[in-house]
């Protein structure tokens, strides 16, 4: 112990030792800083106070409720109530105003669009996409092609009651029959009419396609819903086949697939999930994306 100072100070480092020695290795006494220790004690005291004031300990069938009965659930309910109060004046105006009036008033329009944006992201975006650009089988809401109508009232009606949904006032009835699978049309007829459908919107057809026969098959089987000229029927949700917009795709294979297996696109009814103000705001939002009809 030659390098050990009599006072217990380690000569090399100048630090006091604890007096503990293991295999000749001495333990230097480097205690935690005082301030740190006191902060640590303070956190313990704080924790005890926390147990008393807030819900903390799990009990057999319940938990310790805390002095003031604070609950995270009541806290969020209060916050939501405050939010409703904050929005109250404008929300009241939206609730009372006809749809067109909302769109004509810059202040109400801005409020409705701002309110609808997160609603759309939560409820509509899973199918229609975050930018409402749609996907195969799910309509793009930005364009001017509407299956069930594009006026404000039409849009609001579709949101409220859905399409081919479990709702007494829903859009419908049923979708496109499975002409191939159910044996209504023969395979060759389906291929022929698919070429005719492409020709309706001016898309190129296969060389040697028999459009006259296709037209006849169309008149017999498709015109009932899609109309004699293929312009569609909004009462039935039958798409316009003469325009540039295709819900599933414009290539022959996709058209044949639709003819063979049928199409039965659906949209849920939202009246039971969203309040009327929210639906009105959403209708205005969708209508003002760009494709809204007068």
């Amino acid at each position, binding site marked *: 112990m030659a390098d050990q100072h009599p006072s217990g100070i380690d000569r090399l480092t100048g630090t006091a030792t604890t007096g503990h020695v293991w295999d000749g290795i001495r333990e230097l006494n480097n205690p935690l800083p005082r301030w740190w220790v006191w902060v640590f004690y303070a956190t313990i005291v704080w924790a005890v106070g926390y147990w008393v004031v807030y819900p903390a300990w799990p009990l057999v069938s319940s938990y310790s409720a805390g002095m003031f009965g604070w609950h995270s659930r009541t806290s969020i309910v209060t916050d939501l109530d405050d939010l409703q109060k904050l929005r109250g004046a404008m929300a009241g105006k939206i609730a009372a105003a006809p749809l067109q009036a909302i769109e004509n008033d*810059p202040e109400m329009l801005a409020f409705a669009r701002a309110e609808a944006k997160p609603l759309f992201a939560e409820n509509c975006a899973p199918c229609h996409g975050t930018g409402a650009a749609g996907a195969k089988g799910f309509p793009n809401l930005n*364009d001017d092609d509407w299956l069930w109508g594009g006026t404000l009232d039409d849009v609001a009606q579709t949101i409220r009651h859905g399409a081919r949904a479990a709702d007494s006032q829903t859009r419908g009835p049923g979708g496109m029959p499975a002409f191939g699978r159910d044996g209504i049309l023969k395979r060759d007829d389906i291929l022929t009419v698919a070429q005719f459908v492409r020709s309706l919107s001016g898309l190129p057809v296969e060389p040697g396609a028999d459009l006259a026969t296709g037209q006849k098959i169309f008149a017999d089987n498709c015109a009932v819903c899609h109309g004699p000229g293929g312009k569609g029927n909004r009462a039935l949700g039958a798409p316009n086949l003469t325009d540039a917009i295709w819900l599933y795709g414009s290539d022959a294979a996709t058209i044949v697939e639709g003819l063979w297996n049928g199409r039965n696109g659906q949209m849920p009814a939202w009246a039971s999930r969203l309040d009327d103000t929210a639906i009105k705001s959403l209708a205005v939002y969708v209508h003002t*994306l760009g494709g809204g009809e007068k």
Partner: protein
Amino acid sequence: MQAAAPTRRLTDACKDSGCSLYRIAERATPENDDPGSEPPLYVAREKIYPQRVRGTYRRAKWIILFVTLGIYYALPFVRWHRGAGAPGQAVLIDLPGRRFYFFFIEIWPQEVYYLTGLLILAAMALFLMNAVAGRVWCGYLCPQTVWTDLFQTIERWTEGDRREHERRNAGPWTAERVARLGVKHVLWLMVAWWTGGAWVLYFADAPTLVASLATFEAPLVAYAWIGILTFTTYTLAGHMREQVCLYMCPWPRIQAALTDEWALNVTYRYDRGEPRGSVKKNEALRARGIPAGDCIDCRQCVAVCPTGVDIRNGLSLGCIQCGLCIDACDAVMAKIGRPPRLIAYDTDINIKRRLDGLKPIYRIVRGRTALYAAIIAAVGVIMLYTLATRGHEGINVIHDRNPLYVRLSNGDIRNAFSVHLLNKALEERRFILAVEGVPGAAVQVIGDNESEAGEPVVAVGPDQTREVRVLVTARGNPTGSINTPLTFRAADTKSGEAAVADDYFRWPAP
């Protein structure tokens, strides 16, 4: 060797004054590297009792103190008529309204680049001051210096000047000492509170806020900020003082790297002062024809120093170059009948030149100062020009990202944009919105808007912005590129003043 030089100089400079920096430097030297006797990392502050002084520089500091603090405390109450609906306060930072008012200037958040310009001007002014006369900022203008000066004055009023204060603090706790200390802290807190109070007045209508503060109806945030600034002022100016300059402030470090040998500094002219000695001894030497210095080692320069350094040891980090030692020394020189300015604004070069029997030279105008002045002038002119010619309208356009374009049923392509129109005038204005760049493009604004000659017209309220959703529809891609440059133009229907913004029209990939 070169690397060790600054430490040495610092050590020398501080040795006699006994400032705490000296001990830090001393600890770092190799001879003190004995591990068994390592001193603690923390050095307790030694209280400085700066003595009262009179003279040219003290007067300059008083004037600057009164002018700068006067501006700070009184400016919120200055009124400026802008017209109905606009605030009547000359200088106002309207955070909820997102506006900054400065007399006839109104700055919008979109124009925050003026702040950049101001910061450049401030930095260059600081550099120019430094190039001309070292730490002018530290000695005369820095808020830390000004408020510390004020607090030290209060301290001298209540607890007495240097000697009296020192003597009392060394003695027992008497009722009088406690009373004087109490009065000092109350006065300090009042000044600190007033400082915080003036600060919040810049953020709201001052007379209204004063009334609501007095009746305890002001928003909590106002009281909180007054509290915070009361605390910082009381702590920084009352208790920390020179430690802020020594340990906290970055400027002394930057300043030391920026300065050069031509910058004027508060300098002890040792060519004149040394060898120092008592009045009688030096006069006796002079009488015998032996050269003697003017410095009588009275230590008045140290006594008045607010940071407690001895200027006779040369420049140091602790010296804020306030010039109070010049005043103290001049007073002594007058008493002993020697010429003034033994300590003066000078350079080391000139001291060496005088020792060599040469005339001193001063180079206030040199490359460095000319460059700083040129930058200040250029930035100032650019700012004034943009301020004078800026429009009272603005337009910002954001292209919809999702989807980038929409195909319509007739094959047309449509792009959607969020367009923000800014009306900085104090009356409602109507803007015709048009696009250029895509032939045959049609513009439509969502909502119930008027139109003029087929183009949509958007009304924007006074001093407001309005966001509208704008649809641009076009047919047939003229270039084959998927992006066609598109320019939005919002023109005032009355005056024709217009704001433009560039964006792109996006086509589907071929």
